[in-house]
């Protein structure tokens, strides 16, 4: 059934951004996340915002998707703005409610910081919107592969994440189905206090977990029968190619970031 497009959901279209090597995109976002904290001027931040907007347009991901923010993010953004506005006492007093004062500098600072958080979220969202989950974790696995020498199981982690991505929608559907099946047997999920409510979830959670184990069993069997024996001697269908385009994209990102910090 239809799932509404929200921030960060992979948006499968062809665009210059989608075509970039996932490692280039991960590195770019990582540098931006760190670098943004050093962007301290309004023109600098505006530059970053304009650059982001340009990249969003290039990505062909509808701008609308970026306006649908998860509640947690909204809360953090609003909280950041309010906290600064209420507790920072710089500049002229705009409002005075006795204990609470809002200063002009504080308000500006609040909006500035909140906007910075918003930019961070949008950048991360653009990464996952233009990079399929498989590519994303192939990229991460590769970037983490030096850790293999420290016995970090990067192949296994990547495989686990791939399987999790594959099965999340399946389990979601199953959870919905079991909930309805138990409701048809008279189960109520919104009655009584918290303990009773938690108890009423058991008839849904138990079969879901049992089902997940059964799936895991069958999946393991299918994988084994398809010749899976861990990461050794395995090749990759999605070959990562770090090309000129990727170098160019990373360079441009760094230049804009440097300019943003300098402004």
């Amino acid at each position, binding site marked *: 059934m239809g799932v509404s497009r929200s921030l960060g959901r992979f948006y*499968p279209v062809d665009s210059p951004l989608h075509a970039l090597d996932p490692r280039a995109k991960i590195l770019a976002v990582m540098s931006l996340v760190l670098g943004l904290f050093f962007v301290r001027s309004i023109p600098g931040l505006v530059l970053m915002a304009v650059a982001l907007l340009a990249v969003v347009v290039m990505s062909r991901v509808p701008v609308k998707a970026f306006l649908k923010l998860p509640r947690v993010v909204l809360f953090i953004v609003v909280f950041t703005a309010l906290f600064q506005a209420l507790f920072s006492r710089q500049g002229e007093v705009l409002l005075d409610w006795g204990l609470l004062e809002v200063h002009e500098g504080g308000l500006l600072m609040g909006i500035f910081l909140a906007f910075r958080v918003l930019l961070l979220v949008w950048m991360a969202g653009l990464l996952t919107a233009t990079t*399929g*989950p*498989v590519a994303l974790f192939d990229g991460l696995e590769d970037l983490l592969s030096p850790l293999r020498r420290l016995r970090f199981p990067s192949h296994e982690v990547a495989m686990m994440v*791939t*399987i999790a*991505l*594959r099965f999340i*929608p*399946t389990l979601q*559907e199953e959870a919905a189905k079991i909930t309805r099946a138990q409701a048809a047997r008279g189960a109520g999920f919104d009655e009584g206090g918290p303990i009773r409510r938690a108890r009423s979830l058991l008839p849904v959670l138990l079969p879901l977990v049992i089902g997940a184990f*059964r*799936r895991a069993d*069958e*999946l393991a*069997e*299918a*994988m*084994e*029968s*398809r*010749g*899976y*024996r861990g990461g050794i*001697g*395995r*090749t*990759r*269908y*999605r*070959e990562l190619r770090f090309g000129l385009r990727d170098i160019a994209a990373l360079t441009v990102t760094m230049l804009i970031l440097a300019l943003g910090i300098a402004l």
Partner: protein
Amino acid sequence: MDSTTGEVRDSGPLAVSCENLAFSYPGTERPALSNVSFEVRAGEYVGVVGPNGGGKSTLARMLNGLLAPDSGSSRVLGVDPAVEPFEARKKVGVLFQNPENSLVAPFVEDDVAFGLENRGAPVEEMRVRVRSALRAVGLEGYEKRETHTLSGGEKQCLALAGLLAVEPEVLVLDEPTSMLDPPGKRGLLRILDGLRGNKTVLHVTHHLEELLWADRILVLNEGQVMSEVVPSVLFSDARLLGENGLVLPPVLRLARDLGLDLPEIDSSEELAQAILKEMGKRVIR
């Protein structure tokens, strides 16, 4: 074992051979397989039928090295799956009942490539094989689709594509249509029909109508091979059917109950036509 086997192909190289296979699941009294022996020639299409718990799925798993027999041995193209499971898995692909739990990757093309990746195939070769496997099952153009958005029938075709991509010589199908709706079933069976003659196939099922064109049918019950016959012999043997919990497809049942001879079987549509013709003749007389 019944030896009235009708016309069974007995030339050509052996693809699968089992000798006195026996197996019990830990903690159970009744053996899942006891004394199972049979041979399948390369290119044969062999049905495996019988009641639940008769040993069909156990046998399927054994040929792929997922289970090792307690005694006896099997060979698949010269390889003993109990000894060299990874070698055997290059030669035998198993299509399981529930396609939902056979698919590993979130995207279609990645899933088809999974078996190839495991074998260390070079990227260029993978691209070619993924494309041709998807074409073989009619899923061209689905490469970038998310796996979970496919219908049940499409998922099973995708699972089959994943097997075909590694080009196994033997396919073991373990009740591959049981989770599919009728259009999904028809689609899968059409593809399987196309494999007839090119691959050696063992097709485990409850539904005899899926085996109208099999070269031979093994009846497994209580862990033993009760009979090994051509379809027309099985279909006209009421006792053999009854004792092994097998139900004739409606058209065949109708022909039998009307006392008509079973004509050369190829599909239920053709059979219906043949019955009609036969009835037409008699009515005129």
